[in-house]
């Protein structure tokens, strides 16, 4: 009887931990993310924008590049929902096509930035001393420069093209990521599991890739979602200043730039792409904040 009781008791102790096995890290994060309405709204908007970008040719009511001078500055109407611009091109169609460039420019440079930042940050943090000093001095130099100015310099030197925007934004952006990764590495490298990995004879390169990097992922994820709107804004600024996307390509920043001259006569030309930028940037920020909150227990560990 007593033994049976003990067995029962044991079973009870083991069961909760068995249940934990079923819920993985990501399921747990997703669960708390779903409770966050703002984050879910942000996620939905981002998903919508991505769909719009993919299916642009099917969704756009008109050809975004078709110039017809007799349709200049049409007010928003049932025919042209968001009106037309100075060349008579449909603003809605241009925004829909522009989402392709804006999202691409949001995601690709952020990915490159993350990659460079992770490599330099983890090396600086792990090896410390001289390596750290050199990498961090370079990153300080990059950070101490006004980033838009630096990006403009790069764009002027390389010429305006999509690829060069990627390069310019990556040169400007990696330093911030490197700082975050370095700080994280510094705290992780003194953790006992890293020491015990060294004590079983693991090489430094493997320690960095297998033991330190995976433990940075929550931070990196948050950083990534907050980096994307930054890139989108930078591209918009560059295009607005005339060194970003080149006509006739339609980027939201360029549309605002073109529309600014007619702001008083035909405000819709500049305002609608401006709102599009605002919405997507807000959406990414909401998602990023939500992710940060959802990952918070893991970040605090």
């Amino acid at each position, binding site marked *: 009887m007593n033994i049976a009781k003990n067995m029962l008791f044991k079973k009870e102790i083991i069961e909760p931990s068995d249940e*934990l*096995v079923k819920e993985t890290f990501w399921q747990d994060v997703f669960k708390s993310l779903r409770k966050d309405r703002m984050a879910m709204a942000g996620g939905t908007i981002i998903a919508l924008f991505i769909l719009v970008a993919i299916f642009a040719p099917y969704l756009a009511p008109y050809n975004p590049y078709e110039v017809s001078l007799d349709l200049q500055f049409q007010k928003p109407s049932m025919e042209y929902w968001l009106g037309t611009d100075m060349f008579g091109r449909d603003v809605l169609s241009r925004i829909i096509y522009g989402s392709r460039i804006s999202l691409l420019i949001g995601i690709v440079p952020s990915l490159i930035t993350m990659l460079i930042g992770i490599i330099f940050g983890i090396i600086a943090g792990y090896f410390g001393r001289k390596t750290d000093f050199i990498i961090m001095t370079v990153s300080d130099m990059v950070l101490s420069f006004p980033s838009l100015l630096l990006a403009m310099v790069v764009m002027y030197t390389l010429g305006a093209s999509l690829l060069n925007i990627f390069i310019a934004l990556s040169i400007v952006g990696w330093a911030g990521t490197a700082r975050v990764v370095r700080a994280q590495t510094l705290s992780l490298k003194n953790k*006992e*599991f890293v*020491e*015990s990995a060294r*004590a*079983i004879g*693991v090489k430094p390169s493997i320690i960095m890739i297998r033991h330190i990097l995976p433990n940075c992922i929550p931070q990196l994820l948050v950083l990534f979602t907050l980096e994307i709107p930054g890139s989108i804004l930078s591209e918009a600024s560059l295009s607005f200043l005339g060194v970003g996307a080149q006509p006739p390509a339609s980027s939201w920043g360029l549309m605002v730039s073109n529309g600014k001259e007619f702001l008083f006569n035909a405000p819709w030309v500049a305002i609608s792409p401006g709102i599009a930028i605002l919405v997507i940037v807000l959406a990414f920020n909401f998602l990023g904040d939500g992710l940060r909150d959802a990952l918070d227990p893991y970040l605090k560990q």
Partner: protein
Amino acid sequence: MNDASTILEINNLKTYFYTDKGVVPAVDDISIKVKKGQIIGIVGESGCGKSMTSLSIMQLIAPPGKIAGGEILFQNKNLVGISKAEMRSLRGNELSMIFQEPMTSLNPVYPVGKQVAETLLLHNKHMKKAEAKQKVIEMFKMVGIPEPEERYRVFPHQLSGGLRQRVMIAMALICRSKLLIADEPTTALDVTIEAQILKLMKNLQEEIDTSIIMITHNLGIVAEMCDYVYVMYAGKIMEQADVYELFDHPKHPYTEGLLKSIPRSNVQQNKEKGLYSIKGMVPNMLNLPKGCRFHPRCIYAEDACREVEPDLVDVGEGHLVRCIKYKN
């Protein structure tokens, strides 16, 4: 000079930390010998250099620390100045270590079984993953982890402290190391689990025939586990003896003090006298007292103690003591 039964011989090891404020002699000229199958205890207060000794053996001293002198002969091979690659092939394979904190010694993002398998695969290049998994599960069984197959894919935060320490032991012994360094392996565990883990370590030690260096501040563990004991104070060995000899005839005032400050179960006596404690604190390592390092806290201190640093003196039967009271 070195008989075959000696697995580790440390001679005059000095591990110094070169800080901005000066040189800290964390380990100051110590010699330790470990025989095959022996359990050695290193005891002392916090900050006396116990952990630094173990990290020196593993060659895991990080700057500004440095091994400033002496030799560490492991199976007749000097580990001081050995190449990094060669040291890596020894670590976890022939020479392994268990850390104090089982809570943070495992990587939180990998299943525990995988982490133990990593050690195996690292040191056996041709081993297949399935074979490693099988061996890990066998090892889990050996260290008394219930449902080893299930536990293989569990993450560290899903295990209790005791189970995690068992995983750490499995990891340390999976390659059947010749020498296991246990740095306060049970300090973070509660007493019942502590007893289980110690018993397990002793059993495994007999089964695998490894030697163990047990680093602890708990004299109870020493009495229970060890064959031979070193008492460290402020980076130096104060007394070393066979475990029975040390507990029955402590010679150094520090050892005497340590033994006296063990809580007794005699309630009446405790109420009357209170718990004995050695007065004072471990000295600042940057500014060590002149003469004997222990004299400011020693109840027998004389004038001579403030002047000359005593040598480690053999008082017979492998019992050595560093105190002015004893002469050759």
